[in-house]
Every structure is written in structure tokens, then in C-alpha cells.
């Protein structure tokens, strides 16, 4: 496991959640593995930690499902990298999973209550 600073505040991703986040990241256009990991980390204010040991299996899984399609290309700083593009099916899947995710998180939220309500 990669060890980085202040791990205590970071959250290991649940299986399945990572898939959703990858798909979500790719909405903004093709991206390579490192870029995806970086984007997830940044957009979550460095709270979500992407374990590369599970990133690449997840990419392979999504590729196998036909939700993303790979293509070798050139990165912004002129390096060859494998870029992943969201497919039409991937988009549908994202919509399905996102709404499901929102339902769950809403449910959890309503059970836990707003943080401020705690006395």
C-alpha cells in the first residue's frame, strides 16, 4: 500500500465506488490512469485516496464491460499514455449508478442527521 501523509483523514474507496468515480471523471473527456487518479484525489480535496493496486484492475473491469474504451495517445506533456474514453453504454451506466448512489447517500444522510443537529 502506498503510504502518504496524513492518511488518517483519507478514506479508502469501497469496491464499486471507484468504478463510479472513474466513470464520473471521464465525463469531462478522455483521460489516462494517472490523470484519473489525480482528478479523483483533487476533486475530493485529497480526501479520497486512489489505491493504484485497485485502479488498474478497475479500469480493466470497466473496459471488459465495454463502458470505457482505451486508446494510446499523447499526454499534455508529450508522453505516450493509455487514454480511456467513456462509451455510450458507460454513460448510461453512470446515470444508473449515480442515481443509485445518491439514493443511498441520501438515506445514510437522513439516518445520521445533519452534523449540526448533534448536541
Amino acid at each position, binding site marked *: *500500500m*502506498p503510504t*502518504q501523509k496524513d492518511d488518517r483523514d483519507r478514506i479508502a474507496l469501497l469496491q464499486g465506488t471507484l468504478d463510479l468515480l472513474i466513470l464520473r471523471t471521464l465525463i469531462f473527456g478522455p483521460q489516462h490512469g*494517472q490523470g484519473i487518479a*489525480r482528478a479523483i484525489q483533487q476533486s475530493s480535496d485529497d480526501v479520497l485516496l486512489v489505491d493504484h493496486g485497485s485502479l488498474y484492475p478497475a479500469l480493466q473491469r470497466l473496459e471488459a464491460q465495454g463502458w470505457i474504451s482505451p486508446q494510446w495517445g499523447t*499526454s499534455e506533456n508529450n508522453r*505516450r*499514455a493509455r487514454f480511456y474514453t467513456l462509451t455510450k453504454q458507460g454513460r448510461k451506466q453512470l446515470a444508473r449508478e449515480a442515481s443509485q448512489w445518491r439514493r443511498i447517500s441520501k438515506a445514510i444522510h437522513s439516518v445520521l442527521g445533519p452534523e449540526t443537529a448533534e448536541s
Partner: protein
Amino acid sequence: MLKKPQRDAQDFAGEIQAHIELEAARLRGEGLSAKDALDAARRSFGNVTTAQEHFYESSRLIGLHHLGQDLRYAARLLRKSPGFTLVAVLTLALGIGATTAIFSVVDAVLLNPLPYADSSALVFVSEAKPQNGVKTTGASYLDMQAWREQNTVFTEMGGTQAHDLSLTGRGDPTTVHTVVVTPELFSMLQEKPLLGRTFFAEDNKKGAAPVVILSEQLWRERFSSDPQVLGTTVSLDQRGFTVVGVMPAGFHFPPPSKKGGIWIPIVQDPVFGTFLPSRGGHYLSVVARLKPGVSLAQAQANMDAVNTNIVRQFPAINNAWQIHLQPLEQVTVGSVRKALWVLLGAVLLVLLIACANIANLLLSRATSRGKEIAVRIALGAGRRRIIFQLLTESAALGLCGGIAGVLLAYWGVKALAPFLPSDLPQADAIHVNGVVLLFALLLGLAASVLFGLAPALFAADTNLQANFREERGRGSSGGKRGRVRNLLAVVEIALAMILLVGAGLLVRSFLLLTSVSPGFDVTHVVKAEVSLPQFQYSKPQQWDAFANDLLPRVQAQPGMQETAIGLPLPIVHPFVNLGFSLPDGPPLPPGMPDTADYASVSPNYFRVMGIPLLRGRVFNDHDSAMAPPVLLISETMAQTYFANRDPLGQHVKFFFLADAPVSRQVVGIVADVRDVSLSQAPGPMMYAPFSQLPLWGAILVTRTSLSPGAVATAVRQQVAKIDRNLPVTDVGTMPSFIDATVAQPRFRTLLLGIFSGLALLLAAAGIFGVVSYSVACQTREIGIRMALGALPGDILRRMANGVGKMALAGIVLGIAASLGVTRLISTLLFGVRATDPVTFAVVVAVLIGVVAIAAYLPARRAMRVDPVVALRHE
């Protein structure tokens, strides 16, 4: 998933490389040096090799790949230690081979006892009269006809009887096993002939032309498989029978049956044909086929109703008689069933011991391979991968053992054949077949998983450091694994104990059985049987005349010290039980059976057979057909029926067709003999003079110093002088014929003896292995002890202490288990109880002796340890 396009590892490696470089570039952008950025990028990515392995494993049939790898490795390993491989494969082969061989017998005899179509629908229909103690007996022809017409539950019904007829005109005169049948038998069995036809109802009408169906064997041996045999005439008891059919090779009925017989309709039989008009006889064995969907209970209810009807119609004859139905398979297998299940159980125990042994071997080896496995784990092998590899190794071993076991089974089934009791049903159908093969292979697989699991789990369970350390300071006790090995050895001793006790009990029973005094002494007695064709020699006077002609002729031959006629002979012939009444005495108390076993004998019989006369006189030449009817009774008969009066001079009346009106006077009392079997205590017995109550045929017994062959020649010559068409058969010494009657107990005793020997050997090997291993592990410790002043005797005592504990635990466990298990074989025992203390004591002594020897050999090595060498051992 399957449509996934293959992506090669190179491509994936490139992607990872790109990732790291991109990350490094980003970090450089944040101000890190080139080297630090790359290092940080690598660190943050984690284990590249693991990622690549994940990719690799997810993209192909990795299990198959590993299996191939493991198999190659296992083969290399097995080749590298041929001693271990040989012992393991042999152990397993013995277990599987013996199990398969016995299972082959069980498969043929118990699982498929009847070679007929839909044989589970066949039921044996018998009569019984419980109030007279008659449990199961045959029916008369008239009763059977009534059953056949009145029942609503059977599709068909057939009756049989059997005896020998003499076949002449085809080579030497001989007797041929003749099954006398009602014509529906073949259609009931749904059997088709090889040639010609089976019987029609018309064949059994009075006055019909005599017809015969040949068995394939007789057709082959006496008719050289002549396809033109149909329509030819064969002479049976000097009467012509037309051949109408030949049955195929595997067919025989009733089961189990002698080979090479013939079938004739009952109306044509010289003996049973004359019984047909009488309703009171009980001579036909009746078998019927249930209609589809009819249960045995429904059939029984229906036959009960039929019986009530018959009893109402013929109260004088049929009163108190009942009808009993049993599955034919059950009747056929009968007494063999138990013995075979016991043997199968015993052989499975042997297999279990073999497995424990193999487990022990593999466990020892897994321990000594601890370092290798630790290295593998350190190099990144997963726990599952290690277990899988070890399992592959033991499975490969199991497969080798299975194959060797199947070969051994083929050989074993062949080797068993001569020892199989001849009255075993389906004995000729015993062979290693597909089912049995499957059974063996499953056994091999199950056994290998069984013994592969333990070492695999232990090997993979240990943590790295312990394994590295172990190589240096092998502990004295061996820890958890040592305990498991000791436990296995204890189990082996306990299992071997069970087998030894079982075998010991059977051996003791067999020795008691064969040394039981039957009440007669036939050490130098030879028997020969002369059959009289019943159409020619149809009158009792002729039988008597023939005997009177033959006896002095044979007696006059040199070497024949004493010759007599007796029928039936005790033990070697089926006994004859006759009803009688005592006209002089008070009526018998209710419930006391009014039957006794019976024989017709010539005056010399008691001297030839060595049966002592206790009171009165034996028969003499004056007891002819003309003289007053006389009778000898046995001691038991005298005590049972003449308790308060002197039997001599009393009268006995037989319920016997040929003798019904005659009252016989008791002239003597002779000693009891065992006439039913060696194992059955003598019951009441009556003898009548052959001249007064002759039976057809002459069974000669002669006290002689000649060989059976010489007797056969002499008797044949003399018989030929009287009638050259008379066959002389079944010549041999009486002891050999009596011996043949204990073939079944001998068979099971022999087999269980072999199995327990194997078990003992395997258990000894197990103990040897455990002690050898513990000596090897403790070499250093022993060296230290000896360097500190311990004597070899102390070391031996230490080892003996450990082995003694194992032996004690095994024996205690074994005794407890044996006490439970031997109850199962109590019905197979004779003269000893299942808890026989002598057997238990002997077995315990033998086990202790064997364990001591097996442990002493390696322990001796411990005593000879040179402290200097031992301390340098590591």
C-alpha cells in the same frame, strides 16, 4: 467477459510506466528533484510486480497454467525421492486395490445378485407353519396352481425343484443337474433362449412328449455346441427327452445354482412328477413377478386372502399354513450379505489406515520442506497457491496409487476366484467393471484430498519466521505437527486393533468350527455316489436289490476295509427331516415339534462312520424288507421324546409316503451326530435299515487305505458289471467334502486375516515413520543430553516413553471401538463371543510386540548418536 480482446503484458507494463512518468513529471512540477520525483512516483504507485501479476492472472486461465506447473513440479519431486514415492504409492495401491477387489465382489453379489430383467420385482413365495416351527418351506403343485389362478398381484408365477438325473449316450454316463420347472418359469423371468424355445403350458400336460432345455455349458461340453441339437433326443435316466431349446451362457435358475444343468417340465420328472396330485407336499420353490406398481405389502395382503380361501377349501391339509413373501434378491444373498459388508467395512478400514500412513509421510515431508515453503512465501507465493501446489502433489500421488490400485484390483479379483465359495450367487459375474473402476478412482481422489489437506494446511499456516527458525533449532516435540503425526499413529494403531480383533474372532471361530467333533469319524472314509435311473429302477425293491448286489462286490475289493450305504450322509448332503408319531406314548405336548432328521443306512454304516452304539443293537442282515420294521434313534431323540421311559422296544411311526402305515420298533440308541452342518448342534435323529426303507440311488461310504481315484476305479468296475449305464460320481474323501461346506467361513476368515495383516504392517510402518522422524529431529537434543552424561539406556527410555503413550492411547481407543464394532459380526461367530477376552488379550499382545519392534529399530539409531557429530549436526 469471454469476448474480451487479449491484451499483452507488454502493453500493460507500458501503461504503468506511463503512469509513473506522468506522476513524476507532476511532482517535478511541484519542485522535487528528478530523482526524488521518480522515487516518490514509484512509491506512490506501490508494487508494480503485483499489479502486473494481477493483470496477468486476470487475463488468462491462470488456474490451468498453475496446475500444469504444479504437476510438472510434483512429478519432478516424486522422481527425486523414489523411496518415498514407492512406499506411498504401494501403501495407497494396497488400500485401493483391496477395496476395489472386495467392492467388485460386493457389486456382483450384493448389488446385482440376480441376472434377470427387472429382478427387483421378483419375489420368493414360501409356505410356513409357525405353530410347528416351520419357518419357510416349499409349496405343493396344487397349492401353487391355486395361488397362480387366484392372485391379482403377480404377472406370472413359476415353481422349481432340482435333483440329478443320469445322462447316458453322450460320452461317459454322468449325472446332470436337473432343474424341474413349471413351464411358466421362463416367461416369468422374461428370459429368451439362445436356440429354439422355452416351455409351453402344453409341455407340462400329462401325456405330453418329454422335452428338455439345455444350458449353454452342457450344450458346449456334451454336444460340442451343435446348432442342429434341436429335435435330437437325449437319454435322461434311460428315458428319451427331445431337446427344444438352449439357454444362453449366463443364465441359471434358481440362483445361486450349479453350472451346466438342464431344465425339464415337472410332469416329466421321474420323482417330482409323481408328487403332482398330492396337495400336502412342500417341495416346490415358488418365485413370482409383481405387477408394476404393486408393493410387497399389497402382494402379501392379496396372498393372505388367497391362503384363507385355500385353507377354507382344504382344511385337513392346509390348516395353520401361511404364505410368506420375500424379495428374491434378499433370499438369494441371504447369509453372504453380512459377511460381505463386514469384509467391505474391513477393507475400508485398511484404506483408512493407508491414508493415515500417507498423511503421516506427507506431513513429515511438508515439515522438512518448511524452509522451501518459507522461501516461496517470501518470494510472494500466496497461501492458496501453496495449498494448491501441495494438493496437486498429493493428488498426483493419489492418482498413481489409484492406477496401481486398479492394477492390483484386477490381479486381486483373479486371485480371489479360487477362494470364492461355490455357493456365492453370481460368482462368475465378478469382475472389475466400470462402476468398480469409478469407485476406485473416486477413492483415489478422495484419499488424496484427505491426506493432502492436512500437510497443505499446516505448511501454509506457519508464518515465515517460524519456518526459517525451525530449520535451525528443531524443537524436541515437533510442536503442532508432531502432535498431529502422533495422533495419526494412534488412529492407525486403533484401526489396526479393530481389524485384528475381528480377524482374531473369525480365526478362532473357524478353528473351533473345523475342530468341532461332528460325532462321527471319517478320517479314512471315501464316498462315491451311484445314481439309479429312475425310470428303469422305479421300485424300492430294485433299489434294495441293487444295493445288496453292489455292497458285497465292493467289499470284496482289496483295500476296502468296510463299506456301507447311507443316505443322506451327514453334513455333505442336505438333511432330510421327517414327521413322526409315537403310538405307544401320550400325545406330545403342544409346541413340541414332531419331526426328526432321518437317514436310511445299511448295517455297516455305523462302523464305517465311527458312530458309537450306546444301547441295544445296530442293524444287521436280518433286518430285511420281510423282517419286522425296526429303527435306531439318536441320544438326543431318546432324551427328548422318551424322557421317562425306556425307548428300546417302543414304536415310532413315520409320516412318509413310502412308509405311512408301518410302526417301527426302536432297537438301539446311537450317539448324536451333527448332520445339518458343523456349526449346528445335533438334533433328534432316526435311522431306518436301507433294506426296509430304501431310497433311490446308492451313496457308498467305505473305510479304506486307498486313494479316492483307486476307489472310484474299483467302484466303477463293479457297478459296470451290474449295469454299464450307471454313472458313478462325486467320489472323494469325506473330510474333503465336509471341508467344502465351510468354504464361506474360510473365505471370510482368510480375507479378514489378510486385511488385518496388511493393517498391522501399515500401522507398523506408520509407527516406524513417526519414531524415525522424531529421532531425526532430536538428533541435536540427544547429542546434548549424551554430552551431558545421559546413557543410551536413558535415551531409549525417553523414546520408549513417547511410543508407549501412543501405543497405550491407540490400544485403549482400539478396544473401545472393537467392543462396538465386533457386535456387528457376532452372527458370523461360532463358539466365541464378540467380546472374547482371549482374542482381545492376544491382539493387544501382538500389537504391543509389533509396535515395540517398529519403534526399536529407529530408536536404536538414537542410542548410537555420537554427541560430537550431533552437535555439529546443523
